[in-house]
């Protein structure tokens, strides 16, 4: 019977084997509060965040676990901070490869090297490299842990959505399983079903943008090599294995190599192991022994849905927006979607906030997606020049970069993901001009060391009133929300990151650790007004 939901790809980890649910024998469709479709990193993180906030959630996936292949590889500091809030970051950090140094080559010359120079006083590094199946496995481990602690999360493997019928206050899903079809209803549906999103297709929603005329080959090779743990990028490499090449280290002695192949290629031929080996041999030299672990060919695409919210259906991750991979802006931006959505949906679901709060998920994350698409498009235009003159300028920049430092700032082999600041969001409240720009309303809170602890550990469960060097009530209740105070004395890091030229500060911080508003001293009516605004009642 299992051919009713065939496997489309092989699994790295079988995490949630199919088990028949009583819903499948129900006389009428069972009604659930929140259904998540898609068990990739974004779907798993959504279910985990909602479940930890006490929201009952059912996740449907047409497979039973994490697919093979390293795919999303670079996970950013902000992603690790969000995963830490979700109880999943420690094993990621332990397994992942830390790197800070990048080198840029043109032909056979080293042009320059850069250090991501992570600022001191943060719990997490700028980036780790970790294969996507491991990232998903650690999220799943955290779900199992959360379930044991009572989080109402249910995962249903081999449950494929075949039809979706939206209504005013719910959505009906037709689902196929190894035991045949059944129906479910959901108050809210979150579509995390990837760049080819079947749900998006079923609803006839468009996914507009640019496809770049280029193909990239990923070759993951397993070898004992003594290359340093750095990101090496070649423009027009001397070994002629592609128009550009990237070398990056993964856990388990595996190296990610990307080759730029051009547009007119024979995919099947390029994926033959002998042809991949010819490229890798030319790059590494004839004496290096390695095994091919996983290979894939992809094109650069930058596009997004016009809106991420469609009534009771919300799109997140690659289903909502897609970017080219140089810059690590795919999974990292999807995790920021989750971070933005979960607390809002929890407040709407329990009646504290109006439904319109979810429209700010759309506006804030469309802003984030546009920022990522802009950066990704520019990097792609630099890596793949479209005209002879743009290639001439690109190569002029590379020639100058070896000798003149200014040109290095123009070289673009991918602008690496930084968290989005929601400038101009309707949820942002009062600002204070003496305080640092990096913590203005809309910004993600930068971490800071506290005595034996980290600032971000204290933020993210609900709204928090952070006070530095000043007084305020221990708790504030307004508009159905309880705001707990976090009282701190200034440290050098808090001064630089939160006070600036001010002597003291009061910050209202959202459950996603973004700043809602800030003042020099506590004023109950100002804080209550900012809180109303931050939950969409302003």
């Amino acid at each position, binding site marked *: 019977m299992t051919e009713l939901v065939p496997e489309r790809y092989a699994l790295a980890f079988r995490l949630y084997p199919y088990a028949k649910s009583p819903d499948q024998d129900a006389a009428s469709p069972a009604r659930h509060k929140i259904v998540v479709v898609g068990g990739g990193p974004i779907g798993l993180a959504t279910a985990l965040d909602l479940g930890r906030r006490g929201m009952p959630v059912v996740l449907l996936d047409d497979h039973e676990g994490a697919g093979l292949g390293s795919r999303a590889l670079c996970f950013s500091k902000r992603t690790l901070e969000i995963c830490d809030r979700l109880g999943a970051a420690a094993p990621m950090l332990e397994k992942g490869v830390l790197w800070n140094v990048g080198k840029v080559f043109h032909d056979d010359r080293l042009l320059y090297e850069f250090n991501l120079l992570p600022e001191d006083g943060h719990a997490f590094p700028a980036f780790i490299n970790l294969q996507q199946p491991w990232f998903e496995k650690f999220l799943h481990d955290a779900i199992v842990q959360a379930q044991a602690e009572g989080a109402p999360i249910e995962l249903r493997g081999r449950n494929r959505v075949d039809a979706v019928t939206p209504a005013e206050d719910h959505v009906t899903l037709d689902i196929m399983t190894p035991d045949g079809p059944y129906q479910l209803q959901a108050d809210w549906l979150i579509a995390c079903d990837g760049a080819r999103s079947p749900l998006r297709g079923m609803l006839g929603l468009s996914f507009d943008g640019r496809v770049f005329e280029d193909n990239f080959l990923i070759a993951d090779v397993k070898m004992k090599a003594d290359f340093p743990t750095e990101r090496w990028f070649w423009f027009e490499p001397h070994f002629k294995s592609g128009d550009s090449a990237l070398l990056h280290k993964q856990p388990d002695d595996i190296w990610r190599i990307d080759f730029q192949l051009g547009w007119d290629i024979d995919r099947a031929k390029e994926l033959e192991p002998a042809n991949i080996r010819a490229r890798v041999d030319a790059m590494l030299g004839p004496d290096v022994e390695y095994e091919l672990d996983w290979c894939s060919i992809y094109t650069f695409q930058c596009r997004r849905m016009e809106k991420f919210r469609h009534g009771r259906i919300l799109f997140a991750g690659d289903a909502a927006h897609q970017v080219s991979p140089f810059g690590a802006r795919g999974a990292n931006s999807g995790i920021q979607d989750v971070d933005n959505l979960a607390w809002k949906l929890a407040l709407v679901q329990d009646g504290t906030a109006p439904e319109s709060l979810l429209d700010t998920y759309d506006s804030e994350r469309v802003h984030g997606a546009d920022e990522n698409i802009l950066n990704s498009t520019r990097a792609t235009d630099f890596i793949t020049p479209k005209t002879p003159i743009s290639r*001439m300028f690109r*190569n*002029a920049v590379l*020639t*100058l970069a070896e000798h*003149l430092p*200014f*040109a290095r700032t123009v070289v673009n082999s991918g602008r690496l993901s930084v968290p989005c600041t929601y400038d101009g969001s309707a949820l942002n409240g009062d600002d204070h001009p003496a305080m640092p720009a990096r913590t203005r309303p809309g910004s993600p809170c930068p971490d800071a060391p506290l005595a034996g602890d980290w600032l971000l550990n204290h933020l993210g469960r609900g709204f928090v009133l952070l006070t530095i060097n000043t007084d305020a009530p221990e708790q504030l209740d307004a508009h159905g929300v309880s705001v707990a105070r976090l009282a701190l004395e200034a440290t050098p890091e808090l001064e630089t990151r939160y006070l600036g030229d001010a002597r003291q500060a009061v910050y209202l911080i959202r459950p996603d650790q973004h700043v809602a508003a800030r003042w020099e001293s506590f004023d109950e009516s100002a804080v209550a007004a900012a809180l109303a605004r931050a939950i969409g009642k302003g």
Partner: protein
Amino acid sequence: MLITTPNLTKPDETYAALIATHEGLSEAESHALNTRLILILMNHIGNDVVLAEALRWARNPEAE
């Protein structure tokens, strides 16, 4: 503000130096030199508003 009034200290000498710099180069080498020169001068100017004005003049010398 982009300076469009005379600003070269030695106009004739500077123009001659520009032409002399290209001596003996193929057309392709000259184009490559020009692109490098543009980038070096853009960095020296630095200001994006001034540069945007210069780009508009260069694209369309009559319409400005």
